[in-house]
């Protein structure tokens, strides 16, 4: 965990006061809605279909129990008793009142949580691997760098009014859980031949109406230079990114229009001129931030404790353990993922009661730490294996033990037309119906790893392009239709899915998905071949035939 010091605390309190003044000026009419819009967006406040929506940052997905309890408090005190975890390590509250927002922010600031730059055309919340610091084989903890970048990008005087939003993600593992290739800047931590830490820098990834996989702009930028290199990219983008058309304003379009070589040349030229600037991070600076991170005092525990051997006789426990428990870098410990995708529920929602109870469990079993992943699930990162049976029972009582992590019902979905003013179609009811269709977790287990992603419009908040199955809501003659793609993925082999055929109406989506899954079961050459690999091997055609033969 990163511990805020007096300076961090002062800054977020100053931000709360500033926002309080901005809200006051809006309520008094001193600010027009047009002026206020930009200011509220800089602080995570959207106007949705029914109310203001408030998006709070969970930088690089790390939460303390104190912070989680405070999020529960905000849900209860200022909202309708629940929150929605997003695909970018944020939490959203959907029913907030403008006049109460400054108080909600002040309550959050007391525990070091803010909503700075969770929307608007600025550098957004920096995201990372939700298993950072605990994943086996990780090169080093990417949160040190995430925090350095979080500070650097917060209230940046030059880059707070960019052409469009700007998202940075960092991974330090071979398997990319942070989806860096669909970010404006993706950073892959690795070491050079001399053993020094640095980053492969990728640029220009993003989804939306013009999806691109990020391209490598530099294979190795030394850690000490990472801030100046990011600043050089931003400076080129701030000056040359398009501002004439909101749909062409992301950096991916600039990279595409210039070509990666020319863009890289511009950035290099800017970087060279910046020279040996104050942005260079010396060893002491990096250690300063590193020293503010605390790590659990792990015990020396057996790999296979008795508690686990005994619980192995309980088939429900075993099913959950095999699905939701992952290897930890320290022997005797596990990473436990909590599915926020119960059968029939909206993906990513958690009630205030669940958050409070989870905080208690994290205090008891996970050194007081919780993680938030881009798949809209939570994790307890440091659970002793001997505690797994007890934890399972507690989760089960809370409705947080659905054994469907990474399975067909672990659906990523945006809020869609139920909440969002941009949406063309509903997302949540589609997800709910699919979880009912595949409600048998044993069947889902046999199907294996399969990511379904749903977006209610082309802005792609549900990352439909990179779902193994992607579902995109569109509007046709006033009715909700859905385009379906297959074969996308968001990991280190990221690619966009391929459209399977004409869009289908709302009522047929679940049937079509069932057909696709059945086709896969018939087509896979062995049970271990994942859906996405079968699509890769055979292409879209056999799936298309199956789905459209009878339609």
């Amino acid at each position, binding site marked *: 965990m990163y511990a805020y*010091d007096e*300076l*961090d605390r*002062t*800054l977020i309190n*100053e931000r709360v*006061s*500033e926002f309080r003044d*901005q809200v006051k000026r809006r309520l008094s009419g*001193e600010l027009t809605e047009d*002026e206020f819009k*930009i*200011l509220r967006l800089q602080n995570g406040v959207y106007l949705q279909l029914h109310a203001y929506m408030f998006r709070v940052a969970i930088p690089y997905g790390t939460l303390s129990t104190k912070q989680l309890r405070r999020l529960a408090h905000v849900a209860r005190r200022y909202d309708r008793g629940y929150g929605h975890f997003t695909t970018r390590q944020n939490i959203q509250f959907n029913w907030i009142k403008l006049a109460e927002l400054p108080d909600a922010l002040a309550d959050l600031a007391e525990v070091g949580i803010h909503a700075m730059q969770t929307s608007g*055309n600025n550098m957004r919340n920096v995201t990372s691997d939700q298993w950072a610091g605990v994943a086996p084989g990780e090169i080093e903890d990417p949160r040190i760098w995430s925090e350095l970048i979080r*500070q*650097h990008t*917060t*209230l*940046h*005087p*030059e*880059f*707070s*009014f*960019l052409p469009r939003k700007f998202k940075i993600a960092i991974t330090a593992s071979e398997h990319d859980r942070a989806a860096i290739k669909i970010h404006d800047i993706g950073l892959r931590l690795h070491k050079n031949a001399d053993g020094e830490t640095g980053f492969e820098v990728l640029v220009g990834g993003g989804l939306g109406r013009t999806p691109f996989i990020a391209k490598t702009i530099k294979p190795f930028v030394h850690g000490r230079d990472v801030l100046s290199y990011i600043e050089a990219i931003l*400076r080129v983008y*701030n*000056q040359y990114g398009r*501002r004439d058309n909101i749909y062409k304003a992301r950096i991916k379009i600039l990279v595409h229009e210039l070509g990666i070589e020319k863009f890289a040349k511009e950035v290099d030229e800017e970087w060279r*001129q910046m020279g040996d*600037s*104050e*942005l260079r991070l010396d060893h*002491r*600076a990096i250690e*300063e*931030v590193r020293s503010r991170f605390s790590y659990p005092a792990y015990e020396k525990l057996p790999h296979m404790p008795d508690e686990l051997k005994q619980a192995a006789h309980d088939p429900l426990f075993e099913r959950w353990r095999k699905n939701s428990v992952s290897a930890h870098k320290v022997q005797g410990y596990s990473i436990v993922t909590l599915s926020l995708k119960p059968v029939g529920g909206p993906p990513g929602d958690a009630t205030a009661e669940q958050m409070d109870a989870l905080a208690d469990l994290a205090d008891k079993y996970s050194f007081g730490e919780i993680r938030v992943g881009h798949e809209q699930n939570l994790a307890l990162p440091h659970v002793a294996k001997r505690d797994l049976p007890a934890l399972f029972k507690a989760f089960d009582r809370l409705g947080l033990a659905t054994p469907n992590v990474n399975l067909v019902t672990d659906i990523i979905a945006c809020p869609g037309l139920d909440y969002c003013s941009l949406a063309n179609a509903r997302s949540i009811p589609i997800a709910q119906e699919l979880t009912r269709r595949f409600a048998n977790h044993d069947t889902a287990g046999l199907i294996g790893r399969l990511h379904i992603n749903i977006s209610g419009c082309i802005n792609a908040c549900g990352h439909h392009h990179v779902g193994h199955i992607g579902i995109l809501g569109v509007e046709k003659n006033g009715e909700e239709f859905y385009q379906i793609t297959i074969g996308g993925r968001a990991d280190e082999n990221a690619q966009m899915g391929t459209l399977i055929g004409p869009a289908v109406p709302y009522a047929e989506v679940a049937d079509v998905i069932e057909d696709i899954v059945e086709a896969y079961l018939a087509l896979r050459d062995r049970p271990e071949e994942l859906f996405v690999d079968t699509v890769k091997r055979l292409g879209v055609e056999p799936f298309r035939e199956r789905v459209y033969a009878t339609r």
Partner: protein
Amino acid sequence: MPLVKQGRITTDLFVHVADGAELPGDGAVLVTAERFLADPEALLRRAGKTGVIWPNNRNLDDLVPWLDRLASVALVFPTFRDGRAYSQARLLRERHGYDGELRATGQILRDQFVFMTRAGFDAFEVKKDADADAFAETMKRYSVFYQPTGDGRVTALNRRMQLRYSESAGQ
């Protein structure tokens, strides 16, 4: 529209002169980049001071050779959501060493004052009187800064390291 300079509302000594309009014989003028570049020497020979309004989509290269003879550079915010001039300001101050008046013009609200000052602006054509009146107060909004810019404010990281150094020195 009030002008804020050196932290106070002040009389604007510069006159914005439109393209094609006649220049006053003396007194300070602000002219467009086009007009300036058409005949810089003639403008700079005038008795009064010269300032240039530089568009936010124009490369600074054409301006740089004249910087030490200009009394003001005005950078433009067509709307306050268009942030290109922040980069221009930092480049003028930090790369090209410009130390004359750097003026923000366009849609300027109090909510940009801190950012603009940090980027190097020291004169502000403020849209609303109430915002101009609130300048000094607004500049006190923040006491902690994460990024190094040319404004000389010490970053949070440097303050922490200074603190750590002085702590360990005292032990």
